[in-house]
Each structure stands twice: as structure tokens, then as C-alpha cells.
């Protein structure tokens, strides 16, 4: 126990001294490993070599750059504008309607983008000006954008889920499926928070313009065609005219084709259904789904003429850099985990919990409470990377479903991203909207942080919300 606590302490000090987290973990991992093996440097160095090489040469990890690329392409394709417009057409007329449209739009965007910060950043550009125009308070509009943005990592695809899946060896496809129901729950709860704010102060979120049903449905152009493709794919597979795999791939090509004609929201929904449905139904592996999704996003972006050579290059090189950065962290985390695993820490933690005589749900609840508190002050990605190697063996030992735990991890990261004083989404908004004082952003997000905590409690208490869909997978 002592060795790993000392190791953890040294790593935190190194990280605090501004050494990159990846290197802090790696250095402590290698030196700690040598110490545990009676200062056998040869075995520690061999461990380091193996971790670098095996992490670099791992086909399953191809899913990382491809999903990141998909997110970077859709961010540049202007889809957020369309999502917001459709959501606005349907619910903009309600009290606080634009704020709710922002949240629903974010949920839709989250379905094709795996990053919370990217989602918040695009909606700051798209939704904030509209809300400003209708006289929304800065508190409500920035709060809704910051909180809505976090849906990007809960609704699949999700960078955090990919990282968690890789670190713990949990199926990424199942994690994605697990995010769907909690994502819907989150969207509903965030909209309720908007209702609460506008109930307290109706002037914070006035109603938008009235629209006829005809105008509303006009934003869903091409829906019939996409639906027809969907029915054809499912029908052909069900009646055995085509293999499920062939039907899915033909469906993909049809969706790509249609999206060249119909550039509305429906093509976004179609891309999501295609990629996630394909992974969920076992037609695509996660890597294949990511490849098809990234290619689809490229087709969409080209169809919208929103992608010139320069922004395509920017999307690619940014994805490449993010990939390298994540892999360094992963390598560091794996080295650190290797050290922790040969100490007595995992066993000691288990014994400690056994002595406390707590039920597994209580243990999970305590861990989550720790995360929420840590998340207010720590950068969330580092928080997860530092702690998951320590907590995960305990969780498995207690018989807690790793997928359920993974969803909860994502939710605490979401809360951390919007909880002051240190929350990346809040910083992004302050940077993009310099006219709004940071204090206003902090105050505006509080109702949303509160409902997020309620959501966390609901998800801890009812694991079935997270485990139902992945349980149905093959």
C-alpha cells in the first residue's frame, strides 16, 4: 500500500510541477516498477519498451484517430447550425425555448461528435447570437451552452468512453450503447433545469417566434427518403433478401448519396443511426464504424461546401496531434498501472472496503462523490487517467459492471467540465464570448450542475439505465 501511495504522491507532485501528466505517470511507473522488483532496472526498462511498442502497434486502437477525425470534420461542416434550427422550429415557441433548443441541438451534435469542448464551442457560435437576439439573459444562455456541450461525451461516440475502454479493456461498442439512455435522460433533465430558471425569472428566457407546422417540417427535408432507406435496410435484412452486413453497407452508400441532395438535420440523424446502429447490431466493429463515420462526415462536409483544402488539412492535422497526445497519456497510464498492479495496493483497497462492510453501490457512490469534489478543481482528463488504474481493480473485485462504472465516469467528467472554478467548458465559453464576464458564466451554470448531480444519483441508483442496451448486444 505504502509504495503505491508514495508513487501516487510523487506523480501528483511531478504533475503539479508542470511535467506533462503522461510523463509523470510514465516516470513513476518505471521507477516504481524497478523498486518493486528489487531495483531490477532491466525488467523495468523491458516493461517500458513493451508498453511503448505494444500500444503503438495495436489495430483496435485505430478507432481513436478515426472517431476524432469524424468529430473534427462534422465540427467544420456546419451541421450544428442545422441542428439548432430544427430544434428551434419545434420547441423555440416554448418558454425558454431557445435554451432548450440549444440543449437538444447539442444532444444531436453529440451523436456525431465525441468531444464536449468542441460541442460547446460550436454552439457558442451558433446558438448564443440567437439567444442574445431574443433577449435571453447571459446567465441562462451560457449555462445552457456549457451544460449542453457536455452531452458530446455522453452520447456516443465519445472520446472519454474510448479512453476508458482502452485503459480498462472494456468493449467500446458496449460503452457507446450504454451512453444512449443516460444521454436522453440528461437531455430531459437539462431542459427541466431551463424550465426551472425561466419559471423563477420568465424574462431570462422569452418565447421565440411562432412557426406553422409546415415550416417546422420543412426543416426535416428529405426525412421520407432517409426513412425509406432505413426501412429498406432493416426489411431486406429481416426477410433474408440480403445479409445484414451487405444491407448495412448498401444503406451506408445510400445515406451518403442522399446526403448530397438533402443537407438538413435528417442526414445527421442518418449518419448516427448508420454508424451506431452498425456497431450496435454487430455489423461493424468499432474500428469499421469509425472509418465509415469519418468517411461519411467527409462526404457531408464536402456536400455542404464548407470544407476547403485548408480546413480539411486543419481537421486532419489536429486529429493527428490529438491522437499522439492521447497515446502518450495512454502509454504513461499503462506503465503506471503496471507498477500499481504489482504493489499490494489493489489487495489493500479490497481489504479496506471489505472491513468497512459497505455494499458495492455504496462504494461506487463514495467514489463518485470523491470525483465530483476533485472535478471542481482538477482538469478532468488527468483526474480520470490518474485514478482509474487505482479504482478499477476494486470495482471489478466488487462485481460492479465495468460498463456501468464507465458511464458514471463519463458523467462525473461532464460535471467536472462545468463545475467552477476549473471547468474546461466554462473556460472555452469565456474565451469565445469575451463580452460575458466569467462570473456570469459561473453563476449561469449552477442550476445545470445541480441537475447533473441529480442525474448522477439516479444513474448510480439505477444501473439498469446504463446496462440495459449493452445487455441486448451480441
Amino acid at each position, binding site marked *: 500500500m505504502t509504495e503505491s501511495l508514495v508513487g501516487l504522491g510523487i506523480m501528483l507532485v511531478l504533475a503539479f510541477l508542470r511535467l506533462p501528466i*503522461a510523463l509523470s505517470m510514465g516516470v513513476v511507473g518505471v521507477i516504481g516498477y524497478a523498486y518493486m522488483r528489487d531495483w531490477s532496472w532491466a525488467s523495468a526498462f523491458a516493461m517500458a519498451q513493451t508498453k511503448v511498442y505494444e500500444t503503438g502497434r495495436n489495430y483496435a486502437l485505430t478507432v481513436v484517430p*478515426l472517431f476524432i477525425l469524424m468529430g473534427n470534420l462534422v465540427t467544420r461542416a456546419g451541421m450544428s447550425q442545422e441542428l439548432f434550427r430544427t430544434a428551434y422550429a419545434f420547441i423555440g415557441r416554448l418558454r425558454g425555448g431557445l435554451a432548450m433548443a440549444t440543449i437538444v441541438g447539442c444532444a444531436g451534435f453529440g451523436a456525431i461528435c465525441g468531444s464536449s469542448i468542441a460541442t460547446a464551442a460550436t454552439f457558442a457560435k451558433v446558438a448564443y447570437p440567437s439567444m442574445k437576439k431574443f433577449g435571453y439573459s447571459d446567465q441562462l444562455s451560457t449555462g445552457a451552452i456549457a451544460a449542453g456541450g457536455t452531452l458530446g461525451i455522453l452520447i456516443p461516440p465519445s472520446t472519454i468512453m474510448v479512453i476508458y475502454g482502452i485503459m480498462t479493456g472494456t468493449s467500446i461498442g458496449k460503452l457507446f450503447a450504454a451512453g444512449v439512455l443516460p444521454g436522453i435522460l440528461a437531455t430531459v433533465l437539462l431542459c427541466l433545469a431551463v424550465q426551472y430558471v425561466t419559471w423563477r425569472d420568465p424574462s431570462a428566457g422569452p418565447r421565440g417566434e411562432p412557426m406553422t407546422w409546415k415550416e417546422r417540417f420543412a426543416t426535416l427535408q428529405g426525412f421520407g427518403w432517409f426513412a425509406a432507406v432505413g426501412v429498406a435496410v432493416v426489411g431486406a435484412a429481416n426477410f433474408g433478401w440480403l445479409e445484414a452486413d451487405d444491407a448495412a453497407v448498401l444503406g451506408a452508400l445510400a445515406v451518403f448519396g442522399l446526403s448530397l441532395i438533402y443537407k438538413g438535420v435528417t442526414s445527421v440523424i442518418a449518419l448516427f443511426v448508420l454508424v451506431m446502429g452498425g456497431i450496435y447490431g454487430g455489423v461493424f466493429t468499432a474500428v469499421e464504424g469509425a472509418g465509415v463515420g469519418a468517411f461519411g462526415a467527409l462526404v457531408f462536409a464536402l456536400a455542404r461546401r464548407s470544407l476547403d483544402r485548408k480546413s480539411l488539412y486543419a481537421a486532419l492535422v489536429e486529429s493527428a496531434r490529438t491522437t499522439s497526445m492521447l497515446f502518450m497519456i495512454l502509454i504513461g497510464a499503462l506503465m503506471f498501472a503496471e507498477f500499481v498492479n504489482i504493489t499490494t495496493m489493489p489487495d489493500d483497497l479490497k481489504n479496506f472496503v471489505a472491513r468497512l462492510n459497505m455494499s458495492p453501490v455504496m462504494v461506487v457512490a463514495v467514489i463518485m462523490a470523491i470525483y465530483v469534489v476533485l472535478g471542481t478543481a482538477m482538469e478532468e482528463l488527468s483526474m480520470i487517467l490518474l485514478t482509474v488504474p487505482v479504482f478499477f481493480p476494486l470495482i471489478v473485485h466488487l462485481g460492479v459492471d465495468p460498463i456501468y462504472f464507465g458511464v458514471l465516469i463519463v458523467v462525473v467528467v461532464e460535471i467536472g467540465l462545468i463545475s467552477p472554478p476549473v471547468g474546461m467548458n466554462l473556460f472555452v465559453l469565456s474565451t469565445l464570448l469575451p463580452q460575458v464576464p466569467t462570473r456570469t458564466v459561473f453563476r449561469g451554470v449552477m442550476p445545470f450542475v445541480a441537475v447533473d448531480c441529480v442525474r448522477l444519483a439516479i444513474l448510480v441508483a439505477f444501473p439498469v439505465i446504463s446496462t440495459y442496451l449493452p445487455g441486448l448486444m451480441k
Partner: protein
Amino acid sequence: MSHKWERQADAVLGVAASALLFGMMVLTFLDVVGRYLLNRPIRGAFEITELALLVLIFAGLPLVSHADEHVTMDFIDRMLPARAARAWVRVMHALCAAIMFFLAWQVWIKAGRISGYGDTTDVLGIVIGPFVYFMAAMIGLTGLVHVFKTFVPGAAQASQATT
């Protein structure tokens, strides 16, 4: 990015990494289409993708260091006076450089061993050794980037945007 050669080096790696990523995307898509529709998977697509990923990760590494995109905790920046914080960042770059050179050395040893065995991929028989030497070289180059950042003041600090 102040120097011309610095911009050029960044662009060379950037274009290479972008082209690889683009290629991986197209290859994965064509492989899916080919396998399911035409019953003709691309031979060795799996191996090419795997090695492309390896090259992509390590070609991108110097770019990450150059753009200061490694995830770091920046509490200390706010605690120290601005000048001291800048000086401290340079000390840390020196430490990063040392760690990167160490890793490069270790991976170089690994590369030697793999080349010694003459390891190749299963289907296409691609020799793996050179790829591992490439890994080592790129980690070494990343070390050089950190050396550069140690001695050349005023290197830009970008914020990271991943989560």
C-alpha cells in the same frame, strides 16, 4: 513559430501525418465496402492500418510537443510570478527532453531486437524493424523539440482541447 525551418519541419510532419490519417480512413471504408459487398477484402488492410497507426502516432508526437499540447496541470503558472513561471516551464522542457531521449534509447534497443529476429507481418510480410526504428527516431526528435524549447525563449503555449 518564428523560424522558417521550424515552420517547414512542422509542415513536413503535419502533411505526412494528415496524409496517413486520410489514407487510413479511406482504406478502412474501402475495406468494409469491399469485404461486405464484393466479398473481396483488401489484402492485408489490417496490417497496413496497424502500421499506419504506429507511424501516425509517432510522427504526430513532435508536433504535439511543438504545439505544447501535452496535458499538463497549470496551477503553478498562476502561483508563480510571470517571469518565474516562464523560466520554470523551460526547466520542465529540459526534463521532458531527458525523458524523451531515454525512451528513444529504450525503443531503439527494442528495434534492434525486433530487427534481429527479422519479424515480419503475417500476410504481406512487411519487415517490422524499420517501423520500430522510426518510433525511436521520432521520440528522439520530440526530445530535440523539448531541447529547443528549453533554450529558445518565448515558445507559444496553446491550450488543449480534447475532452
